[in-house]
């Protein structure tokens, strides 16, 4: 033990430094910043003025933040229901003894691997395009009029659907790993007793997937909280009320946005803290609501 002292210190020191420099220090400072009035994020600490919960009050009163939170909630709820049910559907289909399972699984997961910027560009510039876009061409074929998918009242849903399309694969993989852990004899016994596929799904698969569903809801919530890229891609230059999300709001507060050069790093920090709190609450609530009774099977 003693002669390994040098090794232990030498090998673990970089980890300690990482945790202190990249996590403890920034998180503490962000927390501190959220209680001060700070104009520029690069401003010296001497220019900070303490304002208590003032930043939080300002943020909650701002229309932009309210719009951002409402959009985030819609993404979480509507997008979450869509993504997780599609993911579960695909997982059940792929585990039902279908052929080419590996190929299908890989193809559905694919969007998670490629650059999301490229993916978003494909959706915006091709699928949703007015003149030559895939959706409008399809509508034309069945004799319907094209829709302006990227107009401000459709944009949010266009963005959400494109995002869901990419996200499904990841949650599907997690569902599959859960379904594969359920012993086959349970299904065999159920079949012998005359239970049909739907009964098997609701009586066996769903209850035994409780832990996995919990994991997926947690991941989805964290994912929605840090939603940024798709919003930025759908409104790249000015952030519109229809697609703004909290992280974009935070970004604009710190780095300014087109047409608005007022910066408020304190408010940005407050938004960051609020989002981190949301994530904490999600962990806590999901763990409370869905009890993981450590099923043995």
């Amino acid at each position: 033990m003693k002669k390994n002292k040098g090794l232990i210190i030498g090998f673990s020191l970089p980890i300690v430094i990482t945790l202190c420099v990249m996590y403890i220090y920034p998180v503490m400072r962000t927390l501190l910043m959220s209680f001060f009035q700070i104009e520029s994020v690069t401003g010296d600490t001497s220019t900070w003025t303490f304002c208590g919960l003032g930043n939080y009050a300002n943020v909650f009163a701002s229309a932009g933040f309210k719009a951002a939170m409402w959009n985030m909630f819609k993404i979480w709820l509507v997008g979450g229901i869509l993504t997780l049910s599609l993911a579960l559907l695909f997982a059940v289909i792929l585990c039902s003894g279908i052929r080419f399972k590996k190929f299908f699984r890989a193809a559905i997961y694919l969007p998670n691997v490629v650059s999301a910027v490229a993916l978003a560009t494909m959706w915006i510039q091709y699928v949703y395009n007015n003149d030559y876009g895939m959706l409008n061409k399809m509508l034309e074929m069945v004799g319907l009029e094209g829709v302006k998918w990227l107009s401000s009242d459709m944009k949010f849903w266009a963005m959400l659907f494109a995002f869901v399309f990419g996200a499904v694969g990841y949650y599907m993989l997690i569902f599959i790993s859960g379904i594969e852990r359920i012993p086959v004899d349970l299904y065999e016994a159920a079949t012998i007793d005359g239970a049909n596929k739907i009964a098997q799904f609701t009586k066996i698969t769903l209850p035994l997937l409780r832990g996995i569903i919990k994991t997926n809801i947690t991941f989805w919530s964290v994912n929605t909280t840090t939603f940024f890229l798709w919003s930025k891609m759908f409104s790249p230059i000015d952030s519109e009320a229809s697609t703004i999300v909290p992280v974009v709001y935070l970004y604009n507060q710190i780095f300014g946005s087109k047409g608005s050069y007022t910066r408020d790093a304190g408010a940005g920090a407050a938004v960051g803290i609020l989002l981190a709190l949301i994530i904490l609450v999600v962990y806590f609530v999901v763990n409370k609501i869905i009890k993981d009774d450590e099923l043995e099977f």
Partner: protein
Amino acid sequence: MAKEKVIKERINWRKEMSLLPGYLIVIVWILFSVAFVSWIIAASLSTSREIFSGNVFKFETGFHIENYVNAWQAQNVSKFFANSLMYAIIGCFGILVISAPGAYVLSRFEFIGNKIMKSGLVVAMSVPAIMIIMPIFALTTKWGIGGRMVLILLYIFLNVPYTTVYLLNFFATLSTAYEEAAAIDGCPPAKTFLQIMLPLIQPAIITVTIFNFLAIWNEFFMALIFASSEDMAPVGVGLMQIVNSMKYTGNYGGLFAAVVIVFLPTFLLYIFLSEKIIAGVTGGVKG
């Protein structure tokens, strides 16, 4: 579809029929993806006029490979590509330099602070980047450290917790007999780590490095903040800038060529490594 039916009829037709709705749903989804990607590739080889008239699959004026040349050179994609490659390679290497030895001592030795460090790493994994970038931005601006350097350091440090935890679980599965034998033969512990233990966890190192590579290649938020200038931008940020300047250039063929170039590296990586990647995604998830 047709081909499948032939196979189906030969093998347990009845069972396959009951699975038909499942096949249909999955195939519709995948056909959509295929149509989507093939149109993009066709468009990247067409002129803007062909794209607007909706004739990308006819190639009436031939294949416009020059779109790629144009995107690569005139639109700076080569620069973005080189930047991304640099960030990803240095990043992946740096992560391993910190994580592998750290994971080794954390899994092998009992010492004061071991437990705290392990839980610290797990907590750190769930800290969102938005909580971290503001102070780092302030600090590095004050010190005048360039964007490239900061971005690489962020990529390294922010991937250390996940990588260390991943490797830690792998080291824990190895028998201590290796080190005991090496110690009896008089091998110093650091050498044992480098020459015996590291090669043993090679599969885990490869998997985690693929993930780190994908994560860095596709990272957007921090790149936008720290490296949005043209010389430093990685592919994601660069592509966004190309899209934003489309209004002025109107070169749609070039835009889609740029999209394909950005899309391709991770796509090819995925074609060869999909099994490993998929196994890795679910490997770390506890039900």
